[in-house]
């Protein structure tokens, strides 16, 4: 008895090993050095539908589809010869009924005493859901890349559209402005001259709107507001020109202006002109009609401030918080107040200069103040 026990245990262990080999939750193949199958386990036979004797003697590569065969010949077999092992290779096995079974393959080589390959052990793991997951990831990536491409094309198209729109809108405006200048030199009745002034004001207003819309669109497209700083020419004539243009928009209103500027001022004069134009336009639209709009531009030390003040009811606390947001159009009331981009663009221009645009509003007056620090002269 005592001598039988180890024998029984050994037999039981052998049976268990045999069972482990045959019914393990993975496929086992043993091939000779050339990849000819010597033995396959039952799991693999069950997966593929090939009986054990149908597999014996066949070449491992015969179980692979064309692409797999090529991969086997060009990568799999050479790597085994060189490295003796090759792991985590994704392959498809063609089953007895012609289906493709996705598997993940590990292989290891066993060598003879003289170093030549005696046999190859191959382990195969079913990877149907893993493969589906990977395919899903690839599909998602392809879709995402395609979307990015479409978005980029859309973006380019938008940019072109905006450029063309800007040009096409400015062209007829330039034509009208030219017509106004031509008529201006003719002998005109009082009434005609008044009409001409109003047309001119409308042209200035439309041109300002186009500039603001284009700037906003460019900003949204990532371009932002770009500056062309130029300290060689003075700023004051630009501001005077803007005030003259805005007077044409509202000929019945008074605009008082004070200039106290120590030139040269290092800024983008066209942009600062646009900022002032937007603030003046805002003041003329929303300010009390019977009170003047007051512009005060001054340098004090190395600080430039430009403030524009108007009378009329104060801006509510709630409205003040949203004033500089794009498309904000006030507390209702006046219908004809544009797109609500003027203050937004003005604040963006201030920001681009490293400056600020602030509003103070009470019963006495509403004041917008642009402040920027000037570069110290070296």
């Amino acid at each position, binding site marked *: 008895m005592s001598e039988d026990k180890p024998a029984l245990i050994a037999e039981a262990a052998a049976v268990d090993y045999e069972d482990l080999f045959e019914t393990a939750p993975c496929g086992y193949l043993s091939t000779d050095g050339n990849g000819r199958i010597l033995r396959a386990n039952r799991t693999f036979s069950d997966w593929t539908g090939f009986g054990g004797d149908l597999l014996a003697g066949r070449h491992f590569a015969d179980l692979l589809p064309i692409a797999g065969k090529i991969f086997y010949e060009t990568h799999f077999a050479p790597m085994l010869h060189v490295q003796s092992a090759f792991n985590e290779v994704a392959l498809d096995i063609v089953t007895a009924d012609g289906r493709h079974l996705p598997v993940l393959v590990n292989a290891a080589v066993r060598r003879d005493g003289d170093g030549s390959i005696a046999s190859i052990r191959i382990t195969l793991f079913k990877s149907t859901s893993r493969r589906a997951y990977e395919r899903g990831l690839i599909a998602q990536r392809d879709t995402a890349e395609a979307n990015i491409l479409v978005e980029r094309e859309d973006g380019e198209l938008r940019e072109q559209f905006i*450029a063309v729109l800007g*040009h096409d809108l400015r*062209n007829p405006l*330039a*034509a009208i*402005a*030219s017509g106004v200048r*031509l008529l201006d030199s003719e002998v005109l009745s009082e009434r005609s001259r008044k009409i001409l002034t109003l047309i001119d004001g409308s042209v200035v207003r439309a041109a300002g709107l186009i500039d603001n819309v284009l700037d906003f669109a460019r900003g949204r497209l990532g371009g932002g507001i770009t500056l062309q700083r130029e300290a060689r020419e003075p700023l004051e004539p630009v501001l005077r020109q803007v005030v003259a243009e805005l007077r044409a928009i509202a000929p019945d209103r008074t605009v008082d202006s004070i200039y106290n500027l120590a030139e040269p001022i290092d800024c983008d004069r066209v942009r600062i002109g646009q900022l002032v134009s937007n603030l003046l336009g805002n003041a003329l639209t929303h300010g009390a009609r019977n009170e003047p709009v007051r512009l005060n531009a001054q340098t004090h030390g190395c600080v430039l401030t430009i403030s524009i003040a108007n009378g009329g009811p104060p801006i509510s606390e709630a409205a003040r918080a949203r004033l500089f947001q794009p498309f904000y159009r006030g507390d209702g009331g006046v219908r004809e107040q544009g797109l609500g981009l003027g203050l937004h663009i003005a604040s963006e221009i201030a920001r681009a200069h490293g400056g600020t645009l602030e509003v103070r509003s009470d019963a006495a007056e509403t004041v917008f103040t642009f402040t920027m620090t000037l570069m110290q002269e070296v």
Partner: protein
Amino acid sequence: MTGRAGEDRGVAAIRKITILVVEDETLVRMLGTDMLETAGFIVREAGDADEAIAILSAEDDIALLFSDIDMPGSMDGVGLAKLVHIRWPAIRLLLTSGRQSLSPEQLPEAGQFMRKPWTESALIGNVNSLLAA
């Protein structure tokens, strides 16, 4: 609205200098023509490059080409200026655009660029300095 550059009138009138204005926007062309005529120049007008070439081929007294850049037709203003510079090298070139800014290297040799919208003093000033060169 803008002051007339009357001081240039006499000089140009005596010399009978002819300028070809090329601009597809009629009112803009009329304004440019008006400013140049007021300054004493003789002006020919064309609405595009093809018309301009027809005038240049028919007349031999044009001293300066003043052309818009963005124009419909077979050629834009830059193309026209390059062609004129090759075929009629004596003609001075002044180009203008509200859409793009040209750097000197994009211009034909001896050409000048002026951004739109131009004022009367800028136009006459540029024309005179080109003619004096």
